[in-house]
Protein backbone atom coordinates (compact mmCIF):
# COMPACT_ATOMS: atom_id res chain seq x y z
CA UNK A 1 0.00 0.00 0.00
CA UNK A 2 2.88 2.32 0.66
CA UNK A 3 3.56 2.57 -3.09
CA UNK A 4 0.09 3.97 -3.64
CA UNK A 5 0.65 6.57 -0.94
CA UNK A 6 4.00 7.54 -2.39
CA UNK A 7 2.43 7.93 -5.84
CA UNK A 8 0.08 10.64 -4.61
CA UNK A 9 1.38 13.87 -6.15
CA UNK A 10 1.02 15.94 -3.00
CA UNK A 11 4.07 18.09 -3.57
CA UNK A 12 3.88 19.35 -0.02
CA UNK A 13 7.43 20.54 0.02
CA UNK A 14 7.85 22.37 -3.28
CA UNK A 15 9.92 25.47 -2.74
CA UNK A 16 8.32 28.82 -3.30
CA UNK A 17 10.07 31.27 -1.01
CA UNK A 18 13.45 29.73 -1.64
CA UNK A 19 13.08 29.08 -5.39
CA UNK A 20 14.44 31.89 -7.58
CA UNK A 21 12.06 32.86 -10.40
CA UNK A 22 13.61 35.06 -13.09
CA UNK A 23 10.32 35.99 -14.77
CA UNK A 24 9.45 39.69 -14.51
CA UNK A 25 6.88 40.91 -12.00
CA UNK A 26 3.52 41.47 -13.61
CA UNK A 27 2.63 45.15 -13.71
CA UNK A 28 -0.54 45.70 -11.67
CA UNK A 29 -2.21 48.69 -10.07
CA UNK A 30 -1.79 49.60 -6.41
CA UNK A 31 -5.41 48.84 -5.76
CA UNK A 32 -5.26 45.41 -7.41
CA UNK A 33 -2.10 44.51 -5.53
CA UNK A 34 -3.52 45.52 -2.16
CA UNK A 35 -6.74 43.60 -2.84
CA UNK A 36 -4.71 40.53 -3.81
CA UNK A 37 -2.56 40.75 -0.66
CA UNK A 38 -5.66 41.17 1.47
CA UNK A 39 -7.35 38.18 -0.16
CA UNK A 40 -4.22 36.08 0.38
CA UNK A 41 -4.61 36.34 4.18
CA UNK A 42 -0.85 36.90 4.51
CA UNK A 43 0.34 37.85 8.00
CA UNK A 44 3.70 39.23 9.15
CA UNK A 45 6.38 36.55 9.17
CA UNK A 46 8.72 38.36 11.57
CA UNK A 47 6.90 36.96 14.59
CA UNK A 48 3.93 39.19 15.33
CA UNK A 49 1.65 37.74 12.61
CA UNK A 50 -0.08 41.09 12.01
CA UNK A 51 -2.24 41.15 8.86
CA UNK A 52 0.04 42.51 6.14
CA UNK A 53 -2.71 44.17 4.08
CA UNK A 54 -3.89 46.17 7.09
CA UNK A 55 -0.40 47.49 7.76
CA UNK A 56 0.05 48.39 4.09
CA UNK A 57 -3.31 50.18 4.00
CA UNK A 58 -2.43 52.22 7.11
CA UNK A 59 0.93 53.33 5.72
CA UNK A 60 -0.63 54.09 2.31
CA UNK A 61 -2.60 56.91 3.97
CA UNK A 62 0.57 58.69 5.12
CA UNK A 63 1.89 61.85 3.51
CA UNK A 64 5.35 60.65 2.39
CA UNK A 65 5.55 56.96 3.13
CA UNK A 66 8.80 54.99 3.11
CA UNK A 67 9.51 51.27 3.17
CA UNK A 68 12.03 49.59 5.46
CA UNK A 69 12.92 46.01 4.62
CA UNK A 70 13.70 44.27 7.88
CA UNK A 71 16.32 41.55 7.49
CA UNK A 72 18.00 42.22 10.83
CA UNK A 73 17.07 38.92 12.53
CA UNK A 74 18.80 39.61 15.85
CA UNK A 75 17.62 36.34 17.37
CA UNK A 76 20.69 34.07 17.46
CA UNK A 77 18.57 30.93 17.06
CA UNK A 78 16.90 32.13 13.86
CA UNK A 79 18.60 31.93 10.47
CA UNK A 80 15.65 31.91 8.12
CA UNK A 81 15.90 35.56 7.06
CA UNK A 82 19.63 35.22 6.40
CA UNK A 83 19.07 32.08 4.33
CA UNK A 84 16.26 33.74 2.39
CA UNK A 85 18.37 36.83 1.64
CA UNK A 86 21.35 34.75 0.57
CA UNK A 87 19.37 32.23 -1.48
CA UNK A 88 16.61 34.28 -3.05
CA UNK A 89 17.30 38.00 -2.62
CA UNK A 90 15.39 38.98 -5.77
CA UNK A 91 12.10 37.72 -4.35
CA UNK A 92 12.61 39.92 -1.27
CA UNK A 93 13.34 42.90 -3.52
CA UNK A 94 10.26 42.05 -5.62
CA UNK A 95 8.14 42.19 -2.49
CA UNK A 96 9.74 45.44 -1.36
CA UNK A 97 9.03 47.01 -4.75
CA UNK A 98 5.43 45.82 -4.64
CA UNK A 99 5.03 47.13 -1.08
CA UNK A 100 6.50 50.49 -2.15
CA UNK A 101 4.05 50.63 -5.04
CA UNK A 102 1.10 49.78 -2.79
CA UNK A 103 1.89 52.40 -0.15
CA UNK A 104 3.14 54.99 -2.65
CA UNK A 105 6.75 55.09 -1.42
CA UNK A 106 9.67 56.20 -3.60
CA UNK A 107 12.32 55.14 -1.13
CA UNK A 108 13.18 51.68 0.16
CA UNK A 109 15.77 50.98 2.86
CA UNK A 110 17.11 47.46 3.26
CA UNK A 111 18.39 46.69 6.75
CA UNK A 112 20.47 43.61 7.52
CA UNK A 113 22.57 42.49 10.48
CA UNK A 114 26.17 43.64 10.54
CA UNK A 115 27.72 40.31 11.43
CA UNK A 116 26.88 38.31 8.33
CA UNK A 117 28.89 39.68 5.41
CA UNK A 118 27.64 37.19 2.86
CA UNK A 119 24.01 38.18 3.36
CA UNK A 120 24.95 41.75 2.59
CA UNK A 121 26.97 40.72 -0.46
CA UNK A 122 24.10 38.67 -1.91
CA UNK A 123 21.66 41.50 -1.40
CA UNK A 124 24.04 44.12 -2.84
CA UNK A 125 24.57 41.98 -5.91
CA UNK A 126 20.83 41.50 -6.40
CA UNK A 127 20.15 45.22 -6.00
CA UNK A 128 22.85 46.05 -8.55
CA UNK A 129 21.11 43.81 -11.10
CA UNK A 130 17.82 45.70 -10.96
CA UNK A 131 16.22 48.94 -11.95
CA UNK A 132 12.89 49.26 -10.22
CA UNK A 133 12.56 53.02 -10.29
CA UNK A 134 12.76 53.40 -6.53
CA UNK A 135 15.54 54.94 -4.47
CA UNK A 136 17.30 52.13 -2.63
CA UNK A 137 19.50 52.22 0.48
CA UNK A 138 21.27 49.41 2.30
CA UNK A 139 22.10 49.73 5.99
CA UNK A 140 23.81 47.31 8.35
CA UNK A 141 22.53 47.14 11.89
CA UNK A 142 24.15 45.97 15.16
CA UNK A 143 23.40 42.31 15.83
CA UNK A 144 21.51 42.83 19.08
CA UNK A 145 18.51 40.77 20.08
CA UNK A 146 16.07 43.70 20.08
CA UNK A 147 17.62 45.61 17.14
CA UNK A 148 15.12 44.16 14.67
CA UNK A 149 12.12 45.32 16.71
CA UNK A 150 10.57 47.83 14.34
CA UNK A 151 10.76 50.93 16.52
CA UNK A 152 14.37 50.07 17.43
CA UNK A 153 15.26 49.64 13.78
CA UNK A 154 13.64 52.94 12.86
CA UNK A 155 15.44 54.66 15.74
CA UNK A 156 18.75 53.33 14.43
CA UNK A 157 18.01 54.35 10.82
CA UNK A 158 17.20 57.84 12.11
CA UNK A 159 20.68 58.10 13.63
CA UNK A 160 19.98 56.84 17.15
CA UNK A 161 20.92 53.62 18.94
CA UNK A 162 19.17 50.40 17.87
CA UNK A 163 16.93 50.61 20.94
CA UNK A 164 13.12 50.48 21.01
CA UNK A 165 10.95 53.57 21.39
CA UNK A 166 7.23 53.94 22.00
CA UNK A 167 6.65 54.90 18.35
CA UNK A 168 4.61 52.70 16.06
CA UNK A 169 6.38 53.23 12.74
CA UNK A 170 3.36 52.29 10.60
CA UNK A 171 1.36 55.08 12.22
CA UNK A 172 4.08 57.49 11.08
CA UNK A 173 4.23 56.51 7.44
CA UNK A 174 7.04 53.98 7.78
CA UNK A 175 6.34 50.46 6.63
CA UNK A 176 8.78 48.16 8.44
CA UNK A 177 8.27 44.73 6.99
CA UNK A 178 10.14 41.48 7.59
CA UNK A 179 12.02 40.08 4.58
CA UNK A 180 10.05 36.82 4.55
CA UNK A 181 6.77 38.74 4.62
CA UNK A 182 7.97 40.74 1.63
CA UNK A 183 9.08 37.60 -0.20
CA UNK A 184 5.53 36.31 0.32
CA UNK A 185 4.17 39.61 -0.98
CA UNK A 186 6.34 39.06 -4.06
CA UNK A 187 4.82 35.60 -4.54
CA UNK A 188 1.26 36.88 -4.13
CA UNK A 189 1.93 39.68 -6.63
CA UNK A 190 3.24 37.14 -9.12
CA UNK A 191 0.83 34.24 -8.66
CA UNK A 192 -2.23 35.65 -6.90
CA UNK A 193 -4.09 35.09 -3.65
CA UNK A 194 -5.84 31.89 -4.73
CA UNK A 195 -2.49 30.30 -5.59
CA UNK A 196 -1.04 31.42 -2.25
CA UNK A 197 -3.97 29.88 -0.39
CA UNK A 198 -3.43 26.47 -2.01
CA UNK A 199 -0.96 25.87 0.80
CA UNK A 200 -1.45 26.18 4.51
CA UNK A 201 -4.77 26.20 6.33
CA UNK A 202 -7.85 28.32 5.69
CA UNK A 203 -7.11 30.52 8.71
CA UNK A 204 -3.32 30.49 8.41
CA UNK A 205 -2.58 30.23 4.70
CA UNK A 206 0.71 29.91 2.86
CA UNK A 207 4.13 28.47 3.41
CA UNK A 208 6.66 29.70 5.95
CA UNK A 209 10.34 29.38 6.66
CA UNK A 210 11.30 27.54 9.82
CA UNK A 211 14.65 27.32 11.59
CA UNK A 212 15.18 23.99 13.31
CA UNK A 213 18.09 23.24 15.61
CA UNK A 214 18.98 20.72 18.28
CA UNK A 215 18.33 17.01 18.03
CA UNK A 216 17.68 16.68 14.30
CA UNK A 217 20.00 15.21 11.68
CA UNK A 218 20.37 18.35 9.52
CA UNK A 219 19.64 21.57 11.47
CA UNK A 220 18.93 24.58 9.29
CA UNK A 221 16.15 26.34 7.44
CA UNK A 222 13.37 24.91 5.30
CA UNK A 223 10.14 26.07 3.77
CA UNK A 224 7.07 24.26 5.04
CA UNK A 225 3.35 24.57 4.67
CA UNK A 226 1.48 26.01 7.65
CA UNK A 227 -0.54 23.15 9.11
CA UNK A 228 2.20 20.54 8.59
CA UNK A 229 2.59 18.59 11.84
CA UNK A 230 5.67 19.31 13.94
CA UNK A 231 6.70 15.67 13.43
CA UNK A 232 6.62 16.12 9.64
CA UNK A 233 8.53 19.38 9.96
CA UNK A 234 11.29 17.61 11.88
CA UNK A 235 11.35 14.92 9.16
CA UNK A 236 12.29 17.68 6.72
CA UNK A 237 15.42 18.14 8.80
CA UNK A 238 16.41 14.50 8.58
CA UNK A 239 14.35 13.43 11.58
CA UNK A 240 15.25 13.12 15.25
CA UNK A 241 18.70 12.05 16.38
CA UNK A 242 17.66 11.34 19.97
CA UNK A 243 14.57 10.86 22.09
CA UNK A 244 13.00 14.34 22.33
CA UNK A 245 12.27 15.83 25.73
CA UNK A 246 10.95 19.30 24.89
CA UNK A 247 10.65 21.72 22.00
CA UNK A 248 11.31 25.42 22.28
CA UNK A 249 8.76 26.93 19.91
CA UNK A 250 9.10 30.54 18.78
CA UNK A 251 12.71 31.16 19.79
CA UNK A 252 13.84 33.04 22.90
CA UNK A 253 10.58 34.95 23.19
CA UNK A 254 8.86 31.62 22.83
CA UNK A 255 7.68 28.76 24.93
CA UNK A 256 9.05 25.39 25.99
CA UNK A 257 6.54 22.61 25.42
CA UNK A 258 6.82 18.90 26.16
CA UNK A 259 7.76 17.14 22.95
CA UNK A 260 4.89 14.70 23.09
CA UNK A 261 2.34 17.47 23.64
CA UNK A 262 3.34 19.16 20.41
CA UNK A 263 4.80 16.68 17.90
CA UNK A 264 1.45 15.70 16.41
CA UNK A 265 -0.01 19.20 16.35
CA UNK A 266 -0.14 21.18 13.13
CA UNK A 267 2.24 24.10 12.74
CA UNK A 268 -0.35 26.85 13.33
CA UNK A 269 -0.92 29.46 16.00
CA UNK A 270 -4.41 28.21 16.66
CA UNK A 271 -3.17 24.68 17.45
CA UNK A 272 -0.52 26.04 19.84
CA UNK A 273 -2.85 28.36 21.73
CA UNK A 274 -4.00 25.72 24.29
CA UNK A 275 -0.33 25.15 25.17
CA UNK A 276 0.21 28.87 25.69
CA UNK A 277 2.64 28.89 22.77
CA UNK A 278 2.90 30.77 19.48
CA UNK A 279 4.88 30.21 16.32
CA UNK A 280 6.66 33.56 16.53
CA UNK A 281 9.35 33.62 13.86
CA UNK A 282 9.17 29.82 13.74
CA UNK A 283 12.40 28.79 15.41
CA UNK A 284 12.04 25.27 16.76
CA UNK A 285 14.75 23.90 19.05
CA UNK A 286 14.56 20.21 19.86
CA UNK A 287 15.97 19.38 23.28
CA UNK A 288 16.95 15.71 23.59
CA UNK A 289 16.41 13.76 26.78
CA UNK A 290 20.16 13.71 27.47
CA UNK A 291 20.47 17.50 27.47
CA UNK A 292 19.50 19.76 30.34
CA UNK A 293 16.62 22.17 29.89
CA UNK A 294 17.50 23.95 33.12
CA UNK A 295 21.07 24.71 32.07
CA UNK A 296 19.98 25.72 28.55
CA UNK A 297 17.23 28.00 29.86
CA UNK A 298 19.48 29.59 32.48
CA UNK A 299 22.01 30.52 29.79
CA UNK A 300 19.35 32.00 27.51
CA UNK A 301 17.72 33.91 30.35
CA UNK A 302 21.06 35.46 31.33
CA UNK A 303 21.65 36.33 27.68
CA UNK A 304 18.22 38.01 27.49
CA UNK A 305 19.02 39.96 30.66
CA UNK A 306 22.20 41.23 29.02
CA UNK A 307 20.28 42.12 25.86
CA UNK A 308 18.04 44.62 27.66
CA UNK A 309 18.40 47.98 25.97
CA UNK A 310 18.76 49.46 29.45
CA UNK A 311 15.87 51.87 29.11
CA UNK A 312 12.95 50.57 31.16
CA UNK A 313 13.39 49.80 34.88
CA UNK A 314 11.32 46.61 35.00
CA UNK A 315 13.45 45.19 32.15
CA UNK A 316 16.81 46.47 33.44
CA UNK A 317 16.24 45.05 36.93
CA UNK A 318 13.56 42.45 36.33
CA UNK A 319 15.17 40.14 33.78
CA UNK A 320 18.47 39.87 35.73
CA UNK A 321 16.39 39.14 38.85
CA UNK A 322 14.61 36.38 36.93
CA UNK A 323 17.93 35.00 35.69
CA UNK A 324 19.26 35.02 39.29
CA UNK A 325 16.14 33.28 40.58
CA UNK A 326 16.35 30.68 37.82
CA UNK A 327 20.00 29.97 38.57
CA UNK A 328 19.13 29.55 42.26
CA UNK A 329 16.24 27.24 41.24
CA UNK A 330 13.90 29.56 43.15
CA UNK A 331 10.66 28.93 41.28
CA UNK A 332 8.51 30.83 43.80
CA UNK A 333 10.59 33.96 43.32
CA UNK A 334 10.38 33.50 39.55
CA UNK A 335 6.59 33.27 39.78
CA UNK A 336 6.39 36.41 41.93
CA UNK A 337 8.61 38.32 39.52
CA UNK A 338 6.52 37.53 36.43
CA UNK A 339 3.83 40.24 36.91
CA UNK A 340 6.54 42.78 37.85
CA UNK A 341 8.33 42.27 34.54
CA UNK A 342 5.88 41.21 31.81
CA UNK A 343 4.10 43.98 29.88
CA UNK A 344 6.10 46.66 31.68
CA UNK A 345 8.58 47.71 29.03
CA UNK A 346 8.41 49.85 25.91
CA UNK A 347 8.88 46.72 23.78
CA UNK A 348 8.09 43.03 24.13
CA UNK A 349 11.52 42.11 25.55
CA UNK A 350 10.52 41.76 29.23
CA UNK A 351 7.27 40.05 28.24
CA UNK A 352 9.07 37.55 26.02
CA UNK A 353 11.72 36.79 28.64
CA UNK A 354 9.01 36.21 31.25
CA UNK A 355 7.15 33.81 28.96
CA UNK A 356 10.36 31.91 28.25
CA UNK A 357 11.27 31.66 31.96
CA UNK A 358 7.78 30.61 33.05
CA UNK A 359 7.56 27.86 30.44
CA UNK A 360 11.03 26.59 31.37
CA UNK A 361 10.08 26.41 35.05
CA UNK A 362 6.94 24.47 34.12
CA UNK A 363 8.30 22.02 31.56
CA UNK A 364 11.55 21.37 33.44
CA UNK A 365 10.03 21.11 36.94
CA UNK A 366 11.43 17.57 37.37
CA UNK A 367 14.86 18.63 36.19
CA UNK A 368 14.79 21.56 38.65
CA UNK A 369 14.14 18.99 41.42
CA UNK A 370 17.06 16.93 40.18
CA UNK A 371 19.31 19.99 40.27
CA UNK A 372 18.18 20.75 43.84
CA UNK A 373 19.41 17.26 44.73
CA UNK A 374 22.75 18.01 43.06
CA UNK A 375 22.10 16.19 39.77
CA UNK A 376 21.80 17.18 36.12
CA UNK A 377 20.49 15.12 33.20
CA UNK A 378 22.66 16.82 30.66
CA UNK A 379 26.02 17.32 32.33
CA UNK A 380 27.71 15.56 29.39
CA UNK A 381 25.79 17.42 26.67
CA UNK A 382 27.37 20.52 25.10
CA UNK A 383 25.29 23.74 25.16
CA UNK A 384 22.68 23.58 22.40
CA UNK A 385 21.12 27.04 22.15
CA UNK A 386 23.29 29.69 20.47
CA UNK A 387 23.80 33.13 22.02
CA UNK A 388 24.70 36.40 20.31
CA UNK A 389 27.93 38.21 21.03
CA UNK A 390 27.53 41.79 19.79
CA UNK A 391 28.01 44.59 22.33
CA UNK A 392 27.12 47.46 19.98
CA UNK A 393 23.99 49.58 19.92
CA UNK A 394 25.11 51.83 17.08
Amino acid sequence: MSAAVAAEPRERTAARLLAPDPSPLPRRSRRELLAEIEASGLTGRGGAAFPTARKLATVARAHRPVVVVNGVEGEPASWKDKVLLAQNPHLVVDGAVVAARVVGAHEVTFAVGRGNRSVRTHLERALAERSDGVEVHLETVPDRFVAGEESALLNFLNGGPAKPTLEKPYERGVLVQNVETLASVGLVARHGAAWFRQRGTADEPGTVLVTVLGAVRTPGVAEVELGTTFREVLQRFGGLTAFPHALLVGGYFGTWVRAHDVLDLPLTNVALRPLGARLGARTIAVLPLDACGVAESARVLRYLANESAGQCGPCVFGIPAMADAFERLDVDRLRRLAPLVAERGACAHPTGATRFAASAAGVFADEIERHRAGGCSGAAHPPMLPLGASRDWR
Partner: protein
Amino acid sequence: MKIRVNPILCDGYGQCAELLPEAVRLDEWGYPLLPAEPLPRTLEPSARRAVAMCPRLALSLEEKRR
Protein backbone atom coordinates in the same frame (compact mmCIF):
# COMPACT_ATOMS: atom_id res chain seq x y z
CA MET B 1 -9.46 58.42 32.97
CA LYS B 2 -6.47 56.14 33.16
CA ILE B 3 -2.98 56.92 34.36
CA ARG B 4 -0.08 55.69 32.26
CA VAL B 5 3.70 55.69 32.50
CA ASN B 6 6.28 55.95 29.75
CA PRO B 7 8.69 53.24 30.94
CA ILE B 8 11.61 54.68 28.98
CA LEU B 9 11.31 58.07 30.71
CA CYS B 10 10.53 56.75 34.19
CA ASP B 11 13.57 56.59 36.49
CA GLY B 12 11.75 55.39 39.57
CA TYR B 13 11.74 58.61 41.63
CA GLY B 14 8.57 57.32 43.27
CA GLN B 15 6.83 60.71 43.70
CA CYS B 16 3.68 59.32 42.11
CA ALA B 17 3.29 56.74 44.84
CA GLU B 18 3.42 59.50 47.45
CA LEU B 19 0.99 61.78 45.64
CA LEU B 20 -1.42 59.05 44.57
CA PRO B 21 -0.99 56.23 47.11
CA GLU B 22 -4.52 54.97 46.52
CA ALA B 23 -3.64 53.94 42.96
CA VAL B 24 0.13 53.65 42.63
CA ARG B 25 2.33 50.99 44.19
CA LEU B 26 6.04 50.75 43.66
CA ASP B 27 7.75 47.52 42.69
CA GLU B 28 10.86 46.31 44.51
CA TRP B 29 13.06 48.48 42.27
CA GLY B 30 10.99 51.62 42.82
CA TYR B 31 9.08 51.70 39.54
CA PRO B 32 5.35 52.37 39.61
CA LEU B 33 2.72 49.68 39.17
CA LEU B 34 -0.36 51.42 37.83
CA PRO B 35 -3.95 50.19 37.86
CA ALA B 36 -5.31 48.96 34.54
CA GLU B 37 -8.75 50.23 35.52
CA PRO B 38 -9.86 53.83 35.02
CA LEU B 39 -9.38 56.00 38.10
CA PRO B 40 -12.48 56.98 40.08
CA ARG B 41 -13.42 60.65 39.78
CA THR B 42 -12.42 61.34 43.37
CA LEU B 43 -8.79 60.53 42.56
CA GLU B 44 -8.56 62.74 39.49
CA PRO B 45 -7.21 65.85 41.27
CA SER B 46 -4.37 63.93 42.93
CA ALA B 47 -3.70 62.07 39.67
CA ARG B 48 -3.30 65.39 37.84
CA ARG B 49 -0.95 66.56 40.57
CA ALA B 50 1.11 63.37 40.30
CA VAL B 51 1.39 63.81 36.53
CA ALA B 52 2.46 67.43 36.88
CA MET B 53 5.00 66.71 39.62
CA CYS B 54 6.77 63.72 38.02
CA PRO B 55 10.43 64.77 37.79
CA ARG B 56 10.83 62.86 34.53
CA LEU B 57 7.44 63.88 33.07
CA ALA B 58 6.88 60.18 32.52
CA LEU B 59 3.23 60.07 33.55
CA SER B 60 0.20 60.90 31.47
CA LEU B 61 -3.54 60.74 31.80
CA GLU B 62 -5.63 59.14 29.14
CA GLU B 63 -9.10 60.63 28.96
CA LYS B 64 -11.86 58.14 28.34
CA ARG B 65 -12.82 58.09 24.67
CA ARG B 66 -16.43 57.78 23.66
